[in-house]
């Protein structure tokens, strides 16, 4: 069985959006099986067409950051998501957070699976690496 890598993402800001994708896409490229569980404010990162912003007052500088990333050839959030799907990264939405934030399955990007905490913990229990991003 491939080494497994699990992450929990609980915040929806730009940095919390990019980090799990950078780590996840790298891990998948290294042949690892990757599972990312989005909960609380992290959930909005799975909504279709989302453009994450920097946290707090920094949000006004998001455009500058995005431009700088383009200059450095760093893929943007949308491209990273596409890449993650091609690499077989698994995305999960926390079922409770969906009810809490009024998010429907149809709001979420294609391929997202709705999961409860037990199933995710079942995956994480047999995982070589687990990270909490929040």
């Amino acid at each position, binding site marked *: 069985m491939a*080494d497994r890598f699990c992450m929990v993402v609980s915040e929806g800001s730009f940095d919390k959006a990019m980090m799990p994708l*950078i780590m996840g*896409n*790298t891990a*998948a*490229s*290294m*042949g*690892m099986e990757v599972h990312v569980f989005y909960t609380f404010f992290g959930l909005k990162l799975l909504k279709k067409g989302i453009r994450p912003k920097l946290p707090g007052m920094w949000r006004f500088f998001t455009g500058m950051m995005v431009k700088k990333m383009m200059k*450095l*050839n*760093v*893929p943007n959030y949308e491209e990273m998501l596409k*890449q993650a799907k091609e*690499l077989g990264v698994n995305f999960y939405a926390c079922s409770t957070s969906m009810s809490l934030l009024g998010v429907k399955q149809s709001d979420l990007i294609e391929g997202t699976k709705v999961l409860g905490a037990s199933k995710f913990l079942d995956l994480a229990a047999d995982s070589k690496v687990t990270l909490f991003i929040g």
Partner: protein
Amino acid sequence: MEKDVTLDARGLMCPMPIVQLAKKVKELKSGQVLELLADDVGARDDVPAWCNRTGHAMVGQEEEGKLFRFYIRIK
């Protein structure tokens, strides 16, 4: 060093060289040697780690100023 294919990942930042490397390797046959060019400093240790994890053999690694050259034999 002899090589069958070159992947030019210059100008790409972490993790793109690794992601492209993984993609490229899927197209290659066992025993072929891939030359990877990268100029992201992270690549210096990322590429050997990737080889270690995936089982492909690092048969050569060179540094010329800011440029890194890696030679990887496909398993």
